[in-house]
C-alpha cells in the first residue's frame, strides 16, 4: 500500500487536503476539529478551532483560524481556491469536550460546547449541512480526514477508534 502524505493541522490552524491526501489534527480537547468536504472534487479541509467568537480578540491582526466565526469562512475560501464548491460541501465535527467536567460550572469554562455551537451556527447560516459529529464528552480526540473517501476517523485514548 502506498503511504499517502499527511497534512498536519496545528492548534488554531487550518489546512486543505487534495489528491487522496489525509489531513489530521491531534489532541483535540475543548477545541473543535471541523472538516468540510467536496465529494465531487475529493477535496477536504480541516480547521482546529480554539475559541467560539473573534469579538473577544485582543490581538491585532488576529489569527482567523483560531475563532469559529472566522475559521469557517476562511476554510471555505481556502477550499474554493483548491477547486471545491461551497454548495457541494458537507461538514463533520469532532471535539468540543469538557476535559475537566467537574470544573464546568461557569460559562467561560464551558468553552468546548460553545465552540461546537458556534461552528454549527455558522455552518447553518451558510447552508452547509453537518452530516456527522462526535462532540462533547470529557475526553480528547485525534482526527483524520481521508480526502479520497471523505471518511473521518476519530481516535481517543479512552473510547477507541470510530469512523464518521
Amino acid at each position, binding site marked *: 500500500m502506498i503511504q499517502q502524505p499527511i497534512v498536519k493541522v496545528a492548534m488554531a490552524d487550518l489546512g486543505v487536503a487534495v489528491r487522496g491526501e489525509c489531513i489530521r489534527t491531534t*489532541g483535540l480537547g475543548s477545541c473543535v476539529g471541523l472538516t468540510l468536504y467536496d465529494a465531487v472534487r475529493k477535496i477536504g479541509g480541516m480547521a482546529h478551532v480554539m475559541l467560539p467568537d473573534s469579538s473577544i480578540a485582543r490581538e491585532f491582526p488576529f489569527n482567523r483560524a483560531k475563532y469559529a466565526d472566522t475559521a469557517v469562512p476562511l476554510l471555505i475560501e481556502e477550499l474554493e481556491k483548491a477547486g471545491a464548491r461551497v454548495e457541494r460541501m458537507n461538514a463533520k465535527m469532532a471535539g468540543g469536550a469538557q476535559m475537566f467536567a467537574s470544573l464546568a460550572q461557569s460559562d467561560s469554562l464551558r468553552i468546548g460546547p460553545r465552540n461546537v455551537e458556534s461552528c454549527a451556527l455558522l455552518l447553518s447560516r451558510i447552508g452547509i449541512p453537518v452530516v456527522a459529529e462526535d462532540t462533547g464528552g470529557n475526553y*480528547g480526540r485525534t482526527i483524520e480526514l481521508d480526502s479520497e473517501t471523505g471518511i473521518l476517523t476519530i481516535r481517543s485514548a479512552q473510547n477507541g477508534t470510530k469512523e464518521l
Partner: protein
Amino acid sequence: MRSYGKLAEFELDVLKEVGNIGSGHAATALSTLLNRPVDMAVPKVSLVPFEEVAERAGGAEQLVVAVFLRVDGDAPGNLFYIMNPVAAKRLLRRLAAMEVEEDLEYSEMELSALSEIGNILAGSYLSSLADLTRLALSPSVPAVALDMAGAVLAYGLMQYGEMGDAALLVETRFQGDGEEIEGQFFLIPDPDSFPTLFRSLGVDVP
C-alpha cells in the same frame, strides 16, 4: 497594557525564581511523603507557541495524568501537575499503598487518590508563592484527567487564546531515583497577572 510577550531577561529570571520557590516547596512535600530525595531541574520560563506546549509533556497524543487547579485571587492563572501514567501507578503503590495493576486502566479511586496527591503538591507550590509575594492566591478544587497531553493542556491556554498564539509557561520538572518521582509542574499565569506578580516581587512595572 504592556505586552507579556516582550518580557525582559531579568523579568524571565524573576519568573524562574517563582517556579523555583513554588516547585521547591512542592518537591519537599513529595520528598516528605515518599521519604526519599526529590531533585528538581532548573525551571524553564518562556513564551511557548500553543502547538509546542504539549510537546513539553511528551507530545499532543501522549497519554498523561494531569491534575489541574485554577488559581483565583490577585494573580489568576492555571497550574498543572503532570505525570506519566505508568509512573503515576508506581506513585500510588508507594504512597497510598494501593494494590494497582501495571496497566493504563485507572479506577475512579486511583484517579481520586492522584488528584489528592497533585492537590497536596500544588497546594504547597501555591502557598509558598503566596507567602513570597504576599498575594492572595486561592486554588480551585483539583480536577484530574487521564488523556492526551494536547487535549488536557489546551484547557490552560484559553486565557492566552484571545491575545496570541503562545503562552508564558513556567515549567519545572521533578526527577530522582525511581520513576514514581517524575513529574512536571506547568504554571501558566493569566496574561493580566504579570504586572501584579512583578510588582509583588519588587520589580518596577511601567
